[in-house]
């Protein structure tokens, strides 16, 4: 399975995967590179440039940036993956259900989805974030709620053509059950699109959390979060430009990695 996946991957996808693996390794083991954890304040070394003890320098409270960056990237990964898993499961199951279970289900689900689509996604997320500020769980819930709609639309469209295809009709006439039809016909048809949506969705979720952090309604200090770090370190851009650059580069690399991974060969 893994081998065949690697064989079919394009050069870009391999680069994206490698980039994400490196970031993930840093997120998991980056704390080991720091002398203390991300909350420890070394008041003798405030806004210190990168050195042997503090590889990425220290911030305005003397906290080790290596540890904080690792924490922040780990949080981003967690949110991205959680959102993708949740929204894809909801979107795919509802999409298949709508396309497969006749006009009534389809109509009801479509009305619901159109209502969701009429509301701008960021506004819903902001609304949730405003109700319970600083809650990771609510943020995750809000982003998933916005994102499953994409999966639903795509999966429903592809499933509709598959359900009408002679191939599926033929299997149905031979007496195969619903699970079999899903496994052999529908899933192979939707899987590539779902994968692409998932990688892009991951990037979008991470960006959304960072945007909310940047406007101060997402995660709250002292937690390390990429968007929040940007706004916290913004005042020191002339004294310690490398500090501001670190979260910026990290988020750019994350998004780039996911987009490379999702890009299929044309």
């Amino acid at each position: 399975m893994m081998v065949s996946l690697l064989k079919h991957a394009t050069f870009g996808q391999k680069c994206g995967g490698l980039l994400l693996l490196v970031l993930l390794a840093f997120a998991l083991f980056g704390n080991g590179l720091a002398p203390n954890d991300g909350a420890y304040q070394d008041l003798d070394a405030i806004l210190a440039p990168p050195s042997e003890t503090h590889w990425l320098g220290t911030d305005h409270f003397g906290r080790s940036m290596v540890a904080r960056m690792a924490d922040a990237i780990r949080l981003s990964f967690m949110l991205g993956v959680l959102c993708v898993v949740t929204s894809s499961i909801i979107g795919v199951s509802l999409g298949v259900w709508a396309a497969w279970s006749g006009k009534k289900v389809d109509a009801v689900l479509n009305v619901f989805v159109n209502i969701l689509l009429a509301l701008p996604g960021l506004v819903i997320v902001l609304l949730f974030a405003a109700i319970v500020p600083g809650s990771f769980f609510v943020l995750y819930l809000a982003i998933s709620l916005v994102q499953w709609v994409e999966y639903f639309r795509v999966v429903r469209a592809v499933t509709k053509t598959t359900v009408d295809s002679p191939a599926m009709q033929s299997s149905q006439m031979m007496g195969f059950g619903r699970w079999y039809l899903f496994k052999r016909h529908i899933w192979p048809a939707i899987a590539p699109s779902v994968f692409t949506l998932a990688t892009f969705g991951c990037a979008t979720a991470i960006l959304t959390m960072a945007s909310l952090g940047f406007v101060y309604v997402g995660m709250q200090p002292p937690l390390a979060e990429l968007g929040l770090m940007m706004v916290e370190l913004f005042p020191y851009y002339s004294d310690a430009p490398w500090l501001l650059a670190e979260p910026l580069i990290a988020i750019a690399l994350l998004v780039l990695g996911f987009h490379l991974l999702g890009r299929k060969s044309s």
Partner: protein
Amino acid sequence: MNPLISVDQLSVYSKASCLVSPLTFNLHQDRPLTILGQTGSGKSLLAQAIMGLLPDSLRIKGKVSIFAKTLTKQECRAMWGKELVMLPQEPWHALDPLMTSLRQVRDVYQWVVGQTEHTANSSAMKALTSLGLDKSADKLPGELSGGMAQRLAIVAATAGGASLILADEPTKGLDVSRREEVIRLLQDKSQGGGLLTITHDVHVAKQLGGDIMVIKDGQLVESGTVEQVLSNPQAEYTKLLLQAQPSEWPIVDRDPGYFAKSDRIMQTEALRLVRGGKTIIEDLSFTIAKGEVVGVVGDSGCGKSSLGDALLGLLPLEAGSIERFDKKAKPHQWLKLYQDPPSAFTGSVSLATLLDDLVSLHGVDQARIRPLMTRLSLSQEILERTCLEVSGGELQRFAILRALLLDPVFLFADEPTSRLDPITAKEVTMLLVELAREQDCSVLLVSHDPDMIRHTCDQVIDLS
């Protein structure tokens, strides 16, 4: 007299492999030349090479001269439409789906011939009227029937005044009754010029007359005048091609009294079917006996496939009734064979997996598979591949294998061979009829070719 097109030792290469081996021929005025061969034999490449349309990835060797001049691609392009024209395969795909019939033709008069808009309009109208298309002048290609779209495509292609026509499979996908019309039109349009036709249909060659070249795998098999080659073929391959024409098939007949004694399997009473708000079948009653092969003929769009779908319960009836007598048969013993084999299989897994799925679902005896595969001349290797990696003929035989393993009582074969080459089509149809008879399975065979139905079926339902 100089030949219009003279081809000298022309060959087409893709990297190292040779797709068309060196060919030499001349096309003379008012003497049609037909190139006959199966799909994939390199016929279309030849036409593209003459037109200067070959993709850059392919190389040609040899010389092509048109009107006794060797032309560069640019010079060739300048002649398109005015003197030299190519009708692509299934020309209705070459029509603009968003342009009315009149505009398709008018634009040629206006932009290729250079008439003013007003004159172009009346010229186009005149051209359409001469072919009885004047009533369809404001219709879009999607609203035309296959035959009308075909005529329109020919009118549009020749409106520029070209009399040297290269026609690539001009009758592919057309009903038998429409074929002659198209051939006559082609003859008419190429008068005073030349006509090079590429086809797999022996009928087309016969009607056009003139010279013929038989090609197989890019190699010239036989050439000469049509009368000489078709009435007295020398090469083995030409003989095979001729025998594969449905009118030459052996008649598989059974004693007419046979079915009087056997059980009925299905009876329809005053059937009425509606599709898209139009009644396509009205008051149709018939009985199918066990093991009987029933042929359904008619032009495309007459409801042949809908009839089969209705019998299988895939399409609701507007009126009438269908009664099934075999109460013991399970739902999965009423099956269908599809027109386009690749679309009837999932490409996600290998054929072996599909077969295993079926075996485990219905507890089919494994020992039956191998002998049946041998009967259908399916090799074991094809099981390792997916449906996209085997040929259409193999896949259709695999579909028959899958169906027969379930001991069907009724099989609806919806033009099972219309996408296959004549030789393969004959093999597949013959096998299907033979095996169905052995298993005492009734077959509803739908085809647009009356000859095929007449030679294989016990009962014929004519819907035209």
